[in-house]
Structures are given as C-alpha cells and as structure tokens.
C-alpha cells in the first residue's frame, strides 16, 4: 500500500519533472491573489467612502457642484456593486479575457483585474459596515478640532473601522485565494490548473488533486496565522 503510493507519487510528480508545473502554478496563484487583494482593497475603500459619505452627508453639503459629483459617484458605486455581486466571478473573468481585454497578452494581469474588481465589491461593503460601526462622536471630535472631512476619515475613522472588520476582511481574502482556482477557464495555469494538467497527462486523479488541496490548505492556515498576529497587534489600544 505504502509502496503503491510512493510509486504513484514518483509517477505523477517526479517523472517528466511534473512537480515544476505545481511550483509554477503555485506562484501564479500567489501572484494573482496578491494583486487582486491590493486592487480589491483600493477599490473597496474608495467605494465604501463614497457610499458612506453620501449616506451621512448628502443633506448637509452646501456646494451644489460637490453635491452633484457625490451623487453621480454614489450612483456609479451602487451600479458597480449590483453588477459585480449579481454575476458569477467565472463569467466576469471570461468576459474580461474574451471580450473586454482581448488585446492584453498577460493572462495574470487580466485575471488579477477580474478578481480584484470582483473582490472590491465585497470589500466595499465590509469596509462600509466598519465605517458605520464607528461612533459618530469620533467623527465630530475630529471635525470640532478643525480637521477636514478627509483628514478625519484617514486619521480617525478608517483605522478604527479597519480594525473592527479585520476578521471579516481576512475571510474575504481566504475566499478570494480559493476563488482564483477558476483561472483555468481562461487557460491560465494556476495551481488548480497545474494539478488538473497532471491528472489529464497521467490518468491518475488522486495524487495531483490531493496535492493541490493540501497546498491551498497550507496557504490558508499560514494566512490565517498572519492575520491573527496582525489582530493582536492592533488590539494594543483595547486593553
């Protein structure tokens, strides 16, 4: 039994240097995840600020131009959230690759954009719930000292909101990491696609798929550990 496994392992990964496919796929997966996390946070924070600024202040802004701009931005944000959350990420990925960015060569870039734009919608709602969880008094205290709306947001509100939503954000990134496994739909050889290629070449499903599963699991466990260290650090101010 043990010998059988060993033989299969050698056959699947060592012969023809097929382990290299997994390594390459691993780095592709990491790359897409990293880029789309960064893009997702950037989009998410901006959309969350637009949405909560509109909800809290639409009535009190006196500059008519500012009011109109905010209204348009809010409408765009809402449309973005509806479309992105209302359609499957695989469909978005294929639309991006086969329709919108046909002329772009880099599959990693296309996939990162698709996953980043997708994740941004979820991050936006997470960050918005964080902003809403902060007591109004924090904001008023900042403004009463002469800080501008933006300064108060950046120095006072967003850091506290971020801390409050960190567990939920971490959850979103775990989901995102695993979601990149559909990259194979646009023939991008991420780790899942690599495992599948080995399966189709060797007609052996167990070994490559289990290997892929274990790699995801290790990645998620490692990432969860990182987040809990970060959480502990941020908790400093809670004593």
């Amino acid at each position, binding site marked *: 039994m043990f010998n059988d496994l060993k033989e299969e392992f050698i056959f699947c990964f060592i012969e023809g240097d097929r382990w290299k496919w997994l390594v390459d796929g691993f780095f592709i997966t990491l790359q897409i995840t990293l880029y789309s996390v960064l893009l997702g946070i950037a989009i998410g924070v901006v959309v969350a600020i637009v949405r909560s600024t509109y909800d809290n202040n639409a009535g*009190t802004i*006196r*500059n008519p131009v500012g009011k109109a701009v905010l209204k348009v931005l809010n409408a765009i944000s809402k449309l973005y959230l509806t479309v992105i959350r209302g359609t499957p990420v695989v469909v978005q990925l294929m639309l991006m690759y086969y329709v919108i960015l046909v002329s772009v060569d880099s599959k990693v870039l296309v996939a990162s954009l698709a996953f980043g734009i997708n994740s941004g919608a979820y991050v936006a709602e997470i960050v918005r719930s964080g902003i809403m969880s902060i*007591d109004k*008094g*924090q904001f*008023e*205290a*900042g*403004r*009463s*000292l*002469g*800080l*501008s709306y933006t*300064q108060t947001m950046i*120095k*006072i509100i967003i*850091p*506290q909101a971020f*801390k409050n939503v960190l567990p939920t954000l971490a959850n979103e990134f775990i989901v995102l990491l695993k979601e990149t496994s559909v990259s194979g739909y646009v023939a991008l050889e991420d780790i899942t696609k690599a495992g599948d290629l080995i399966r189709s070449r060797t007609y052996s499903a167990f070994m490559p798929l289990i290997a892929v599963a274990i790699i995801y699991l290790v990645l998620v466990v490692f990432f969860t550990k990182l987040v809990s260290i970060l959480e502990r650090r941020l908790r*400093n*101010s*809670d*004593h």
Partner: protein
Amino acid sequence: MTTDNTIIKVSGLRKSFGSLDVLKGIDTEIKKGEVVVVIGPSGSGKSTFLRCLNRLEEPTDGIIEFDGVNITDKKVNINKHREKMGMVFQQFNLFNNHTILKNITLAPVKLGLMKKDEAEKNAMELLKRVGLEEKAKAYPSQLSGGQKQRVAIVRALAMNPEVMLFDEPTSALDPEMVGEVLEVMKELANSGMTMVVVTHEMGFAREVGTRVVFMDEGVIMEENSPEEFFANPQNPRLRDFLSKVLI
C-alpha cells in the same frame, strides 16, 4: 458689525430637523472672558444651540458671527474657524486608536500649527496642569471617565482656542468624578477663557458663570447674572424648572 470685545454674535438662529423646529430664533452675544452657562429641560434645544455655534449642526437659518466673520456664509472655510473654537463632548470622544499624547497633538500637528516636538511639549505641560502627565502613553480605554474628560479638555486647549464650548461635560460621569472635571473647568474660567457651557450643574452655574441663560422650547426665555437668575427668576417656566432641579 460687532463691537471689539464681542466674540460670538448670534442673530435669528433657527434649526429644524425635518418638521421639528428645535431652535426658533436665538439672538445673543458672547463677550470675551464671559462664562455663559446654558440650562434648560431636555429637548429645549440647548445642545443644538451649542452645536450650531461651530456648525457641527448646520443652522437652518440665521447668522453666527465669530470674531466678526459670518461663519454661516457658504464661502467660509469652517475648519479654519473651528481651530479657534474648542469643543468638549458629553461622551468625551477621545480618539480610541491613538494614545493620550497623540490625541492631543494630532490636530495641531496635522493642521500645521505646531511642529511635533513643540506640540508634544505643550501637550505634556497641559497634561501636567490637569494631573495626568503619567497617562501620556496610555490609550483612552485605560482611563476613567473623569480622566478622559480632562484629557478631552486638554485636547481642545492644545489648539489655543479663543472660546471653549462644553456640551454637558459631566452628564456621562460617575458622581464621584464630576468634581475633578468641574475643578478643571473652574480653573479654566479663572484664567480668563471665554466659555459656553451647557450643563445641569446648578452649583457650577452659580459659582463660575458670569451669565446664566435659560432655554426652553427653542428660545432663550431668560438670561441674567447668576445672582439675579437664581434669586429672582422672572419667567414662570424658569421658576417651575428651578423648583424641580434645586431641591
């Protein structure tokens, strides 16, 4: 225009929340060095009045002049004027994500009024004045209510304001901590700071106030020196109110 020693002039101030008229025409002047204590039943609009002075509440109508500038004007950069109007809140509202020292230095440094080391030196001196210099590195959650409120006062003072607004500064405190906060406010008044204080502390109004204002139903019903105000109330509503709060 206002005369030389008038610091805040309020004319025809109105504020409505939807169909609810909270302020129905307030006219008053606050002079340099005055300690104006605003009292009144809950829902009388006294907190709204105070919050309109630095436009934390946007007035529906009326004019507020601060240092001779109409700050209700659309073109005015309110942030510049708020730097000169310190505010202390009922719920303290210290920045939970910053240390006590950073709470105090954040605004002056960020707004370019002071360099970091200068602001920290100033903050430590102010903390010493309220007996909290050993808390500089602590976070707000590690402080008692009374300590938080003293820090909040220091935070406002660090901006070198021309006037200090207090919105029920002792209402959220445990009874044994009210004294330490009132003591700081009293010292501040004695140092000549112009103050507008919304409070239920009648003792403070009588002892420290230079003028007491009674508000009810969105208007100023009566205002007078503390001696006259408490000894000789004219308005029947004020008499009724005082009979309830002065037992």
